[in-house]
């Protein structure tokens, strides 16, 4: 399964995602309450473990990290670096 599909599947487990893939990528999952502050640690460790990557502090506080599409890009970038 591609990184993109894995990330979408992770969020779809929390809530059914409406719209096209492009629209789903623009979803701000924290603003929309799909993930709350308690769920952030789970999200971070889930993808770090799955892809053997480490999100840096700058990644976590970037605006990209807060959208589904941005998160896909960050994981792809960190996976490429390995």
């Amino acid at each position, binding site marked *: 399964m591609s990184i993109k599909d894995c990330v979408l599947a992770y969020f779809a487990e929390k809530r059914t995602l409406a719209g096209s893939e492009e629209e789903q990528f623009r979803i*701000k999952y*924290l*603003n929309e*309450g799909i993930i709350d*502050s*308690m769920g*952030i*640690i789970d999200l*971070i*460790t889930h993808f770090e473990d799955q892809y053997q990557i480490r999100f840096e*502090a700058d990644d*976590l*506080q*970037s*605006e990209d*990290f*807060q959208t589904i599409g941005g998160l896909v890009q960050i994981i792809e970038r960190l996976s490429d670096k390995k």
Partner: protein
Amino acid sequence: MLGPDVICLPAEGFPERWILYNVFTRTCLGVDARAFPWLSPLTAPAEEEIPVWLVGWFSHTKGTMADPTRIRRSAAEWGEPKMVSYSGFLEICRKSWLLIDNEAAYQKRFARKSTPLDGQHFGNFHDQMGFHLLVEKRTSPSTWWLEQKFSSDLKSIRSDSLYGQVQEPFLRDYFGHRLRKELHVLDVGCGIGFFTKMMAEAGCEVLGIDPNEEYIRLAQKNSHPGSRFEVRSIGHPGDLNGLSDESFDLVFIQDALLFYFIRISPSDTQRLDVLLNDVYRLLKLDGSLISVEPNPVYYLSPWLGGIHRPFTVVTEHRYRGFSTVPNSTTFIKAILQSGFRLTNIEDLYPPEHLNLKEDRGVAFAMEFPLWTLLEFLKAAR
């Protein structure tokens, strides 16, 4: 230029080291004294490199009761410095909000964080703590909360905290003379039930309620005869349905009412008026609401000065940006307007017999109490 909110503090034991500290953002940098000329626009940049210490976040990483200025007293633990040129120094100072080039842009950042990972706004204490725990410590805020207050078995309050040195002995003494057997007490926002249990030990029949399922599970594990616990949402219409009118002699709320004035998260929906109406309904006539909340002036403020001459820097009163407790007028007025009369007020000071020389926190709390207890009587509406 040096930001308008920055103060400079000498590090103890290292005459050449200083802390630059933004009192609003709670950010700081350890610097060598040779950096000071670089902060003046009249000084030509030197060619040399100087050491700075990225001591970082200057607030309560070790708990809400930790000294926010402790870094100036622990310079030996700052670690290896980073050698920086003039331009590198300015860059670090800008990133830490010590040098402000654009006051208007800086001002815009004084707002609550829109999400727990919002790095664009400073946010209040809750926001900053949550951000720090998630981004730097990778830990859950509820786990951190328990660890900074309780022993590892959760059976006692940590004696190395002001909860243990001030709040617990004060309340144990207060309950000893205020409570009597068979009083019916409602403990609102009881957490893991430490004080619920203490009131039950005094002979009261106590119901502890809290919205956090994990806290109630832990409370039930350590319960005492006379205490019982329920998971309940609080502060929404209907939350306390099922509890009978005028069924409690006392309602006790400790370190919880503040969250009804300044929410932990902007998305929280609990309402103070709903809670106070519920408390009014549940209390017997002439029953009392007892509130123990952080002191609105001194809680979270920097601990400065000599151990026998403590002083602090007060940064906010009417408009709360960083602080998480409303000012006392706002707080008391809201409760009075809900049909209560103020009957008692006590500041929580440490017991006199403690050895102050070994504990700056206690010395500070002896002068600037970190909690205030208020008693309100239910009056006829």
